[in-house]
């Protein structure tokens, strides 16, 4: 069902692009893909858009009160076995026999004790919209689509922090945006921001909505009309430059679309944050995101060549695409990490790379976490880290084990048994201490194999044993489904979350030990009745340090205010991180959740500098989400 001419035109463009992709990019670089004409569309419901994931009405395909696609979730079937529904993931449609025992064993959860979510969103529970009439009138005349439907507004009032999702499941809504607008291109954004300034309306940019820093929460004290600026319809690759290996992309595109579309032309950005299915390019820039394969491709700050951002003062961008410049402080660094407080990122020129010829997963078992960290440190020292290398601690290893799908053949299960026997009995690894590193190699076949050998040789020096491709691959697959698992937990009194930090190498072991212990102690002190899950993994290596992820969950039966307890424990854990030389955040950002530590983190002068930039760029606080400062 096609809407109008511009839609038809765009679809034609996409077809062209896909064909170009099939032809593996023989088309002349500069003219490979033509810039689409940007023309505002009518405000009627958007049509199905081929190859694009995110519709305007996100609730049509995504959960309004949980993670991800509506059709994909964990549940316990009638036999009491866990299964993952849908067709989208490798795990979809499979039975996971170990999950029930793991949940009961780890959390003391019980399938009889359910805490189901409120099934439907009741619009009457949502605050009525405060509309700025004059703004609305002028907006209408631009033809940019907008909505003040309760569902649309609630969907954009939150990220995925535990307290946000918990409240949604209980059907509780705080301050939500008063309306949602869907600009279609850079110029639409310019118009919206101009109008917002003119009528003093608060604008909160919204990309993928995967924030875990309370960044999307509307400040409850905000009295102006709040407009959520949803960038999801600005999702085109405007051009690909094969001579310089860059692509110019609209900032609303989500990670999976960007990669898929580039892949069709034989390229990739290689930027794969765990949230890449839903998070957007603009969001990556605004939070200083990091991708799993940063060892080859770099983090967002290494990937970005040019940024266009619309601010209340006008548009900020650089005048050329030189690969490096000495022109005073890099203005990109005012934009990256600004978390929507300065303006809306509309277009980004990014580095692209030819798609890797060969990919190989791998895994190594270490007798204990200490040895594993020592190995990662050595790998970093020799600068031979594969595209991705992650080290899970023992609890997480067990968790990964619990998520093994039912194996179809006796042979596989026999092999698994044999492996376990070899590692624990023959090699003498203690099943309660061993830990696993998962690896991903990329490049040409020859180099990958060579590289693989180098890494396994180092691992062997630290007592590591190669544990097969399958374990590695499953480790990465779990990255995408783990967020779904939280929803399952929440059905059964289990709440949890992950948070991250970066820390110098000499502190890695100390921080892991101390933060995990602090979580356990705080849970005990706060009256949590069951032992919590407190686990960590090292997910990135750098020359001088590593990124560490903590996972923390507990069974809250018997607590009157579980979210408050959760927040207290997370707060204490963050204090512990900081006291152990960890950073406030490696890539999640500060938002409002971690604001209180900003001053200690960047010093008074640092805060003053950031503040003066904000004061200049946005004197009327149009971008009033109050993140960061």
């Amino acid at each position, binding site marked *: 069902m096609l809407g109008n001419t511009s839609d038809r035109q765009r679809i034609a463009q996409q077809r062209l692009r896909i064909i170009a992709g099939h032809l593996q990019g023989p088309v002349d670089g500069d003219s490979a893909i033509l810039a689409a004409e940007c023309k505002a569309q009518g405000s009627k419901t958007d049509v199905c858009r081929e190859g694009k994931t995110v519709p305007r009405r996100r609730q049509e395909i995504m959960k309004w009160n949980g993670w991800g696609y509506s059709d994909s979730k964990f549940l316990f079937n009638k036999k009491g076995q866990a299964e993952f529904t849908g067709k989208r993931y490798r795990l979809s449609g499979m039975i996971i026999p170990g999950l029930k025992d793991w949940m009961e064993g780890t959390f003391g959860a019980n399938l009889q004790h359910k805490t189901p979510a409120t099934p439907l969103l009741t619009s009457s529970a949502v605050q009525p919209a405060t509309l700025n009439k004059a703004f609305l009138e002028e907006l209408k005349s631009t033809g940019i689509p907008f909505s003040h439907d309760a569902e649309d507004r609630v969907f954009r009032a939150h990220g995925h922090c535990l307290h946000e999702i918990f409240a949604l499941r209980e059907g509780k809504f705080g301050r939500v945006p008063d309306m949602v607008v869907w600009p279609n291109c850079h110029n639409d954004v310019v118009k919206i921001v101009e109008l917002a300034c003119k009528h003093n309306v608060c604008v909160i940019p919204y990309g993928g909505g995967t924030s875990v820093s309370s960044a999307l929460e509307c400040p409850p004290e905000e009295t102006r009309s709040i407009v959520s600026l949803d960038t999801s319809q600005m999702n085109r690759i405007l051009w690909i430059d094969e001579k310089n290996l860059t692509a110019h992309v609209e900032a609303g595109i989500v990670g999976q679309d960007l990669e898929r579309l580039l892949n069709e032309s034989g390229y990739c950005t290689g930027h794969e944050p765990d949230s890449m299915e839903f998070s957007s390019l603009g969001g990556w820039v605004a939070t200083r995101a990091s991708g799993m394969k940063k060892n080859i491709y770099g983090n967002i700050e290494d990937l970005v060549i040019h940024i266009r951002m619309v601010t209340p003062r006008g548009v900020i961008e650089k005048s050329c695409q030189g690969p490096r410049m000495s022109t005073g402080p890099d203005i990109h660094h005012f934009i990256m990490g600004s978390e929507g407080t300065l303006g809306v990122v509309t277009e980004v020129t990014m580095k692209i790379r030819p798609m890797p010829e060969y990919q190989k997963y791998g895994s190594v078992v270490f007798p204990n976490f200490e040895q594993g960290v020592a190995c990662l440190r050595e790998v970093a020292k020799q600068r031979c880290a594969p595209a991705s290398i992650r080290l899970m601690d023992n609890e997480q290893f067990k968790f990964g084990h619990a998520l093994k799908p039912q194996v179809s053949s006796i042979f596989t299960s026999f092999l698994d048994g044999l492996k376990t026997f070899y590692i624990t009995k023959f090699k003498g690894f203690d099943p309660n201490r061993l830990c696993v590193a998962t690896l991903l190699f990329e490049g040409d076949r020859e180099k990958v194999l060579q590289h693989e050998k180098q890494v396994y040789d180092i691992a062997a020096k630290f007592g590591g044993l190669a544990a097969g491709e399958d374990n590695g691959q499953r480790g990465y697959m779990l990255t995408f489904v783990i967020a779904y698992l939280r929803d399952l937990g929440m059905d059964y009194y289990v709440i949890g979350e992950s948070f991250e930090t970066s820390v110098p190498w*000499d*502190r890695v072991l*100390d921080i892991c*030990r*101390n933060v995990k*212990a*602090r979580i356990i102690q705080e849970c005990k002190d706060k009256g949590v009745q069951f032992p919590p899950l407190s686990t960590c993994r090292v997910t990135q290596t750098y020359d001088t340090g590593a990124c560490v992820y903590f996972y923390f969950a507990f069974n809250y039966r018997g607590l009157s205010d579980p979210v408050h307890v959760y927040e207290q424990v997370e707060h204490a854990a963050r204090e512990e991180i900081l*006291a*152990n*030389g960890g950073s406030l955040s490696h890539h999640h950002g500060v938002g409002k959740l971690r604001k209180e530590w900003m001053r200690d983190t960047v010093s008074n002068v640092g805060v003053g500098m950031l503040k003066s930039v904000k004061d200049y760029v946005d004197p009327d606080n149009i971008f009033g989400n109050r993140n960061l400062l």
Partner: protein
Amino acid sequence: FNLLLPIITLLRRGDLSCSSVVLNPMLKKRDDFEDMLEERRNSSDLRYALRCYTPVLYKGLAPCKASMLKSMVLQSDQLHHVIGQVSRETGRAADDVQEEASAILEEMAHCLQLSTVRFFAFTLSKVFKTLFRSICVNEEGIQRLQQAIQEHPVVLLPSHRSYMDFLLMSYILYTYDIALPVIAAGMDFMGMKFVGEMLRMSGAFFIRRSFGGDKLYWSVFSEYVKTMLKNGFAPVEFFLEGTRSRTSKSLTPKLGLLNIVMDPYLKGEVYDINVVPVSISYERILEEALYAREMLGVPKPKESTSGLFKARKVLSEDYGSIHVYFGQPVSVRSLAQGRVNRCQFNLVPRHIPRRPSEEIQSFVNDSAYRLVRAQEENMVLKPWVLLASLLLQNHHQDQTAGQKRGMVLEELTAQAVWLRDMFREYGAFLHWPGMNTVLSGQVKPGEPHSTVTPEEELLSQAVIVLSCASYRNQGLHVFLRPALLASAINAASSNLKQEVFNSFSFLRNMFSNEFILCPGATVQDFEEACYLLVKTGALQVTQQELLVTERGQRTVAFLTSMLDPFLQGYQVRETLYKMFSPCLVRLCFPGRLRYTEVLSSDLQKNSLAALLRLGAVQKIKA
């Protein structure tokens, strides 16, 4: 002064345990004791010494060999750094410095051997049974300790009144199947042939008494202690007071080792450290007469094996019972909560030694005082402590009156009962077996036996008085703050709260070298003293004034006279600061001094330090 204010601030600081001390001195719950010698008297010592000993270690760790420990220390980043630094500064080859470090470590390190421990277990059983009637230990404390060892690295902080302490500690831990501690001991023991090595094999490591400027020594030493502690190889034991207290008063804590053991927590190398104060109370101290002589200027005999052998005559005497109380483990983490910003270690590599920041120094200092007070609080007071106090006061009155009457038994009994109730009211930990047995012993300070010269007569008299005084001192901590307040009320020109506080504050400041008074806690101490006196009905506090009640007169008089000897000591010091102690002896003759105690070198030393600190005296180096 708002009485509630400091309590509220304490509460706000999360300092609950401390505030509950302030609020409920009478409700302190303490464990029961169990006599561990009883079993020894009923079963074979040899079997006991040879029994299976399998203590549980921190996190189920396997024990670490002494040689492995040494190589861990020598390979540590910290030591490497310091060796490099020393070699650059002195121009010596790094290997050479490394050798030296290795030699220092060799001299220092313990080499705990179970066989030696078993030998001690056997001999000490024999010795203890002869010397003591009972050795009472609180078993709940032992269980807490066992738990604490499994959770976090443990530091044991026993009080130090006798050479016996450290052997006794290891003996107890061996008996209860708890990991044997490694003990910081003074180098003096090393001088003892054979015995020094025996001690080393039972877990002692030896440190020089002073090594102020020696970077390398400090580095080896601190790394050695930290390596043992943070890996949880063994509980680390040392004496916070640094040396044996000759007066039975707790000594001002020494901070060096405490700084070292807290460091791994502050730098995040361990999650937490449990510090366990241990209070060892002797009914009669082995060294009692020795101490008194020492304080009168008779030099301390050098530690030697032959000396030890000669001292075997003590075996024929009765030293009563010992009470050992293992206190509540104190978590360093909770002590530091809200006091130390651990981020201060973020910007310099942790292995580079640095002077502790002021924040940390004051934290360690305050912690040290808290821990010493925790030791004091759990000291068991025997009836003799009360009697000694009464007899001394009586003796002083006699002295003033120029009489030598002593005390009538009934009167002493009556007073003792009164005092017992008062001790209890103030929250003291009394061991009171029943009146009859109590009064079978001494009644008045004995007369010197044969007198040759007046000086000698005075000396032997003084020995007796000082010994008595040291028993009285055991109970001083119970009354210290109320006594300071009582003296302050006496000294102040009016009853106005502010006046009394000023005079309290002056006295407290003056006596801070003498007693365990944490610097900067004047207001808390004042409130605590007021609280205790009000609670026991001795004092009325109004908006403006402090009034001693009718029934409080006796209490206040008693409290004041507790402090009197010290006050006079300081007064004498003030007038005679240029003189040496021999002059003091002469001064005693005409009976101008009521208190023979003034002769104590300890009192003189403390008062001189106080006067120096207060700027009343200046040190001029000739």
